[in-house]
């Protein structure tokens, strides 16, 4: 095993990808000084981004990479998740320096808490990176459950009544939900090894093995198992009606963590659904899981629409918007056509970029205005010009205005809905999107162009909070016009993986 460690670039990369955040977490524990832990975390997140990009480059070259006897397995679908985790992770680490530094100056947290924050941040990245590289579905489940535990620690960083409430609900609901997903995972393992001698080896839980044998599975058990999976991982991915923990947890977390929770963690959980969706499609045809994904997706968008329209709290509004976008991704996968799946995967990246921008901006805004209430926040563009600009771009993008990136993926999704003749869900999605457009747009314009309070001091919050936002704004602009060629190839390959199930039946 250790000889293989240095045998190929890919195995080194995959090991580095998980060793880097662990090392950084350990270093943070020992250094204990504000400046040092910040530098270590930003540097390690930068390393992760570089490693992730090189790994994705290898994925583009080889399509699938399997190392250490198939313990780790990555393909283009994992590549999409790796890119979003490492990119948002890096930008969030920079933003953390500004945001948490400000909280430290305001004496909301002390140095001990700050160290704990960066420990949690690194461990959070580690657990999220473990999800897309696991081949063993049990290991993937353990990683997703570990993301819950680590993020609960981060949410309860502030000892406030509301954050305790949010973390308790999150811990309870997400754990119960994920236990259902484990039921489903074990069921899949069982149908895979039903004829094997008892006490079969762990490879029966490997995704590659499951997909290979899928066509021989007992269809009834597969359907049952997938229902467990979609309810379980769907809870973690914020699909309605299992989303009730999400607005609490995402709005009570420190803003850089909210960005990771909304932008990346939801995708990791959804990635779990996608993996089992492929197995299920290979086994019983894609119609069954597609229908389930479509129903849950439409419900999610609908509930989000109602909640956004009457929302009073800025960060809760953004959290509900995440429910909406996970719904869109789910519906798009459910449509099942090539364009729809391409759009869904593109939407995963677009949503991660836009939502983290909005959470960064909202963090700066709530620090400046010292409130999260929408009604008390107005005239952002005059008080904090650059943050206001970034918030405006993010807000316009998130409600699907052209020429920004989300418009492009939503357009692909909806056209695939009509193309695949799913008229009712497509019409409902359009209706809900219009409501969200009106509701979110109303709040957005008021917050940005309203009359600011005269007493407020003008100025943005510092260069380190602005740089990540401007990077994200430029990505939004670029991705609104065209998708860079390597990324497009990555997404196309990933759509092929998701479409294999249909070719089978």
């Amino acid at each position, binding site marked *: 095993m250790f000889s293989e460690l240095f045998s190929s670039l890919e195995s080194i990369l995959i090991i580095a990808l998980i060793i880097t955040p662990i090392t950084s977490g350990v270093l943070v524990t020992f250094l204990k000084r504000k400046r040092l832990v910040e530098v270590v975390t930003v540097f390690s997140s930068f390393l992760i981004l570089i490693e992730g990009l090189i790994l994705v480059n290898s994925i583009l070259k080889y399509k699938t990479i399997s190392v250490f006897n198939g313990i780790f397995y990555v393909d283009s679908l994992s590549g999409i998740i790796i890119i979003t985790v490492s990119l948002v992770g890096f930008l969030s680490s920079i933003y953390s320096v500004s945001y948490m530094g400000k909280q430290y100056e305001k004496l909301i947290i002390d140095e001990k808490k700050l160290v704990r924050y960066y420990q949690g941040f690194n461990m959070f990245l580690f657990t999220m990176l473990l999800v897309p590289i696991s081949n063993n579905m049990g*290991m993937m489940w*353990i990683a997703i459950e*570990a993301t819950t535990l680590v993020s609960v620690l981060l949410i309860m960083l502030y000892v406030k009544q509301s954050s*305790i409430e949010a973390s308790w609900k999150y*811990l309870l609901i997400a754990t119960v939900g994920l236990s259902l997903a484990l039921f489903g995972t074990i069921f899949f393992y069982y149908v895979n090894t039903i004829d094997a001698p008892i006490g079969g080896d762990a490879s029966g839980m490997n995704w590659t093995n499951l997909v290979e044998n899928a066509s021989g599975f007992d269809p009834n058990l597969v359907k049952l198992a997938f229902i467990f999976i979609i309810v379980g991982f769907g809870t973690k991915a914020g699909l309605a009606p299992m989303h009730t923990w999400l607005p609490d947890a995402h709005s009570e977390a420190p803003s850089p963590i909210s960005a990771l929770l909304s932008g990346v963690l939801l995708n990791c959980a959804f990635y779990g659904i996608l993996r089992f969706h492929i197995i299920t499609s290979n086994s019983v045809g894609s119609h069954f899981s597609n229908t389930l994904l479509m129903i849950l997706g439409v419900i999610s968008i609908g509930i989000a629409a109602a909640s956004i329209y009457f929302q009073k709290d800025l960060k809760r509004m953004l959290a509900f918007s995440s429910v909406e976008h996970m719904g869109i991704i789910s519906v798009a996968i459910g449509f099942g056509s090539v364009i729809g799946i391409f759009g869904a995967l593109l939407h995963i990246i677009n949503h991660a970029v836009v939502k983290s921008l909005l959470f960064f901006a909202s963090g700066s805004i709530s620090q400046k205005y010292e409130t999260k209430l929408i009604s008390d926040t107005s005239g952002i563009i005059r008080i904090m010009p650059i943050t206001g600009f970034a918030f405006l771009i993010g807000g316009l993008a998130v409600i699907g205005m052209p020429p920004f990136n989300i418009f492009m993926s939503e357009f692909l999704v909806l056209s695939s809905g009509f193309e695949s003749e799913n008229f009712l869900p497509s019409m409902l999605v359009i209706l809900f999107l219009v409501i969200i457009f009106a509701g979110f747009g109303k709040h957005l314009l008021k917050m940005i162009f309203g009359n600011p309070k005269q007493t407020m001091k003008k100025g943005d919050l510092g260069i380190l909070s602005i740089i990540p936002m401007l990077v994200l704004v430029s990505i939004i602009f670029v991705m609104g016009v065209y998708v860079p060629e390597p990324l497009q190839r990555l997404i196309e390959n990933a759509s092929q993986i998701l479409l294999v199930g249909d070719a089978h039946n």
Partner: protein
Amino acid sequence: MIFPTEINLLDISSVILLVATFGLIVSRGFSNWVHAYRYQTMVLAGIVALIALITDIWELYIVSALTFGIKAIVIPKILFYVTNKLDSPIKLEVNPYVGMKLSVIISALLVAMSYFIFLYLDIKSNEIIQVFLPVSFALFFIGLFLIVSRRKALNQMVGLLTIENGLFLFAVSLTHGFSLIIEIGLMADILLGVIISSILLFRMSRTFDSIDIENLESLRDD
């Protein structure tokens, strides 16, 4: 090869497990829950050892020992520490959302439901699956019921652990142990979860002066 006496042992152990679970439902005091949970987990560890004996899979002995060590010794220790350190003066489930007598009846119905679900599932089975799968469903449902019907956060936590025990029994009886590494990972997750929720419980009792989940209703959209 399974002998009649072993089938009897299986039946008897599953009954003992259910009885231990009902002990969880009827107890009121904080420390009684932990005791009940510990008995339940000890029985579970015994059942895993029994399955190991019947199927002759040596990994299951290790799993059984781990279950006993982590879930019947370490986790109850943590929970006892939590109950002793909590500031709240009355360490009782005073006024649960569903009364004790009704809880017992509902739990009995849940057990019956679990057996019906198992019959409906139509799984190609051996004796181990037949005996323990319905019991594992029952543990899951009763755990869920404890979470929604009790007021004290500590009791909800024990409910969560009961769900987890059900899941564990489900995994072991259905697949006879999948992989030692994965099972160790699961245990680590549970242990970490218990530690984190204990910290949360302390904070809750310090901030709200109680661990009543009635206090946790301020975050909502209206």
